[in-house]
């Protein structure tokens, strides 16, 4: 095959370095920081809490609201702080992803509010956000059927790749973010921008699911290590 090299030297199916931390903000009910390469996001969760106005609350279950927002200096050209159409669409798909993962009938007439701020954007911001939100929901003690892990896959110069940077996204023939609940094998977010053959799509799904399983392990490890550091202190592991 051709001498294809990704600009950061990664293999086609290699993830960027990931850093994750839970409970990074004190006021929110739950919070998490998630980094995939240079994409850095912070997520905060409030709830379940009262929904106002009370008469518009859902009678049988909790509402889920998501606000995905990029800070003006998170992108190469300064972005105005106002919500763009892109941010509104991403907020919607993230909200719908978590709608399938949170057990909402425990708290009728309440709301679970998720706020995401992208601190630095280098591609795959919505999947990094989803990975952060999963941890933030656990930090808030909210009932989830499973964690949601997400990754972007795509095609560039006819090569199928995983975890697109900003440049790769810009120059790709297709980019496809995927989010799923890995233990339950359920896909909660799927979008594709570009063109793919059916075979390419199937291969990308396979690559994506493999990468998601790796991210899932990192998420679980992040949750456990936040408790295990204390166990280690007392020689209890």
């Amino acid at each position, binding site marked *: 095959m051709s001498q294809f090299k990704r600009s950061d030297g990664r293999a086609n199916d290699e993830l960027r370095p990931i850093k994750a931390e839970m409970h990074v903000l004190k006021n929110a*009910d*739950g919070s998490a920081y998630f980094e995939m390469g240079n994409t850095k996001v912070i997520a905060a969760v409030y*709830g*379940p*809490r*009262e929904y106002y106005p009370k008469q518009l609350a859902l*009678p*049988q279950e*909790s509402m889920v609201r998501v606000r995905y927002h990029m800070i003006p200096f998170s992108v190469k050209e300064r972005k105005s702080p106002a919500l763009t159409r892109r941010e509104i669409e991403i907020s919607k798909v993230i909200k719908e992803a978590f709608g399938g993962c949170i*057990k909402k*009938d*425990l*708290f*009728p*007439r*309440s709301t679970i509010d998720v706020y995401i701020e992208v601190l630095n954007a280098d591609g795959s911001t919505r999947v990094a956000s989803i990975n952060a939100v999963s941890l933030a929901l*656990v*930090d*808030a*003690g*909210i*009932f*989830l*059927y*499973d*964690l949601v892990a997400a990754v972007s896959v795509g095609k560039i110069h006819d090569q199928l790749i995983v975890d697109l940077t900003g440049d790769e996204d810009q120059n790709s023939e297709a980019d496809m973010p995927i989010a799923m*609940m890995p*233990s*339950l094998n359920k896909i909660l977010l799927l979008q594709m921008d570009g063109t793919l053959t059916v075979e390419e799509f199937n291969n990308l799904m396979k690559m994506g699911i493999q990468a998601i399983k790796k991210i899932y392990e990192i998420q*679980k490890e992040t*949750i*456990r290590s936040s*408790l*295990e550091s*204390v*166990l280690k202190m*007392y020689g*209890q592991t």
Partner: protein
Amino acid sequence: MKREIVLPSTLLETGDDLKPGLTTYKIGPNIFSGILGLYEKTNSKEINVIPLKGKYYPSIGDRVVGIVTKFQVFSWNVDINSFHEAILPFSNAIKKERQFYSDLNKLISINDVIYAEIISFDRFSPPTLSIKKKGLGKITEGYIYEITPGKIPRLIGKNQSMINMIKQMLGIRIIVGKNGRVVALTQDFNKIEILGEVIQKIENESHVPGLTDRIKNLLESKLNKTS
């Protein structure tokens, strides 16, 4: 009994006769955790996990520490660290029958702290409180702490052993709300600080066995320093 840290989707038990609780769910014969918590095998048919995070889930009969947020026509709204605000109806707030209060605001007003009992609750309606019984009512001075509600049983201890030890060693009265709010009824700043450290330690280490001894050591060292 060994307690295991579990996450959402951790498999806990398998059995057709087992039932899920508020913290677990069932698929086929398998029961999975829905939260981050501690799981201990018991003989119960309803499988539950002890939550390490999250707000208070009301239960009838629980005594809670609430903060009054709103004043309505015949009731007060009270924040109890849950997913709904609770209601304290005027009729549940008067101690003496046939007493007439010309200014309800003097009785209880916004930002007051009350120790109340939950007398009714279902998921679809806000919990209703009462302060009629002895020992309940407005708390007029002291210091409030917050701890994850799931850790209150740890703070209380088996047969109240932990909380009694703390009360005795510090020599102060402490009100423990099941909703994760604790009030120290004292103005002694030093003791308030020490209790704060104790509560923080329980918050951080409730999942580590041997906590009672560690709390005892902490209290001993802090009290020795100041005597």
